[in-house]
């Protein structure tokens, strides 16, 4: 059956091609009916738009920025437009990236306090933000700077300390700064540990007068330890 079809096609095409080979007439453009090209895929579906939004939003905060040799500047400074770097010099380190895949995707960055700032560090951050403003005048950079400024100012409130900075990029941009009082009540576990340390200290100090003039013994007396119940031990 297939052979018959091929033969029939050859017979049908043969007379068309033959004159071009036998005659020396000028070559005519061949008009071979081809398969029409398809229209480009519509890129405006909801998923495409969400995908673009996702990528664009990630780009706002240079999440995918990699540290390479060319981006290294003097003093270990990275590219100025790296939001993570600005947060880093402000004393906050990227701790978690929360990513949710779904109809409405979610994306968030969690920064945790990495170190306290000295006065010079604070001045340095302000200078870098000033430099950043001169070199990156766009609105996205301004948003980045305002976040860092906000964090910097919030960390200057003496009675409170910043524990965490959560930046949600999707579905709606949001910055959440978790502040706790400096004299906040301690958790059960922490206060137990602190009490145990205090008791240990007082026990050691009570031993001191008896051994005046001698060095502190390297051993720790048994009564310095506070008996801990099994559940407490598990918690500790």
């Amino acid at each position: 059956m297939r052979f018959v079809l091929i033969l029939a096609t050859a017979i049908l095409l043969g007379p068309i091609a033959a004159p071009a080979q036998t005659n020396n007439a000028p070559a005519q453009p061949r008009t071979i009916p081809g398969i029409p090209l398809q229209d480009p895929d519509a890129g405006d579906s909801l998923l495409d738009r969400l995908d673009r939004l996702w990528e664009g939003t990630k780009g706002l905060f240079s999440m995918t920025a990699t540290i390479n040799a060319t981006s290294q500047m003097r003093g270990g400074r990275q590219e100025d437009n790296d939001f993570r770097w600005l947060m880093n010099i402000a004393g906050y380190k990227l701790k978690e990236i929360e990513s949710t895949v779904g109809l409405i995707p979610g994306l968030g960055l969690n920064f945790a306090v990495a170190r306290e700032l000295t006065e010079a560090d604070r001045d340095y951050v302000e200078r870098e933000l000033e430099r950043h403003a001169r070199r990156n005048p766009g609105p996205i950079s301004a948003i980045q700077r305002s976040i860092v400024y906000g964090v910097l100012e919030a960390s200057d409130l003496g009675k409170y300390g910043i524990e965490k900075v959560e930046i949600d990029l999707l579905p709606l941009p949001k910055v959440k700064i978790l502040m706790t009082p400096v004299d906040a009540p301690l958790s059960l576990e922490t206060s137990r540990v602190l009490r145990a340390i205090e008791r240990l200290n007082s026990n050691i100090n009570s031993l001191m007068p008896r051994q005046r003039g001698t060095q502190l013994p390297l051993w720790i007396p048994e009564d310095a330890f506070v008996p801990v119940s099994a559940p407490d031990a598990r918690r500790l």
Partner: protein
Amino acid sequence: MIVPETTAPLVITQRLISQCKVLAFSAAMALSVFGAQTTQAQTRTEREGLWILASGSTSHVTRELIEGFSTSHQLPARPRLDVLPTPQALEAFCSGVGGATPDIFVTSRRATPAAKEYCRARGVTEVVELQIGIGSLVLAAKNGDPLNTLSSEEVWRALGAEVVRGEEFVPNRARLWREVSPALPNSEIRLVTAAGGSSRAYFEDLVLQSGCRHNPTIRLIFEAGYRRSKCVTMRQDGRIVERRVEDIPGEILRAPAGTIGTVTLSQVRASGGTLVPIKLDEVVPTNATIASLDYLPTFNIFLYAKRQHSRAVGGVGVVRGIREFSAFAVSEQVVGPEGRLATNTGVVSLPPDDRVKQRRAAASQTILTR
């Protein structure tokens, strides 16, 4: 004088008018005198002269401002200047409102939110912030010294009391610059710096801390005070020579090769080419690199003025001249590229747009909000 009867009423009217004019003039005079007395009463002040505070780093700038202001204005009394460390100066400035408290504070540190809150809590609610210019710290060596370029990290590794080996701090035993980095000359490490005060503080904050800030081991230290001590504690083996600020250039010139010193840009210029600025972190300190913030060891100079002191309440003000001093401090003749501060103190001018902004803020006495 004979007056025809027909014209008599007219003449009388004219006389009346002229009498009225005299009366009006007299009344105007009386009012003006009274008004002047009233104005005089309104401008009665608690103090005759301005009271200005300056931090150590800005004392020379403030002196220059006072000098210029005193020569260009008729003042009932010369401004009083108190030089204090920044925290004490801020405390004094924010201690309250009235004749017993200072009017103006010149500093190189911008007021933090906590400082603003401190001021507000003590009734100092209307403060005008003006940026005067940019100061800088320069490392210099004598002309012809092969040591002409350094990074702030190399400075820290050469001069710090301890250096990082692996993840531990060990005493710094480096003798030669080449031991710090193979690209540096084979000369002895030596630094001439100020014994204390602002110059020393700037060297610690802007060069030493900058040099150690990005070190991975240093970055692991959470506590600011401990981290700072690791960065700014300098070696005690005789390689750090302490002198008065004005004696540092001479000491550098007398010292052997490899000696660097902490000076100002104006001191380098005044040396007539015998001192050369060291390229720090690949940037030569010039007016252009300082203004563009490419050169890192720089600091802004701010002026804070109490607007509440320039207003009279119940006919009594605190002092005259706050508005005039503010306007003078940011005028082109003072902070311009050829201005008094640039010429005499080495302060680098802000970009033109920023200078205009500061002048507007001074003219309108814009209150600090952020």
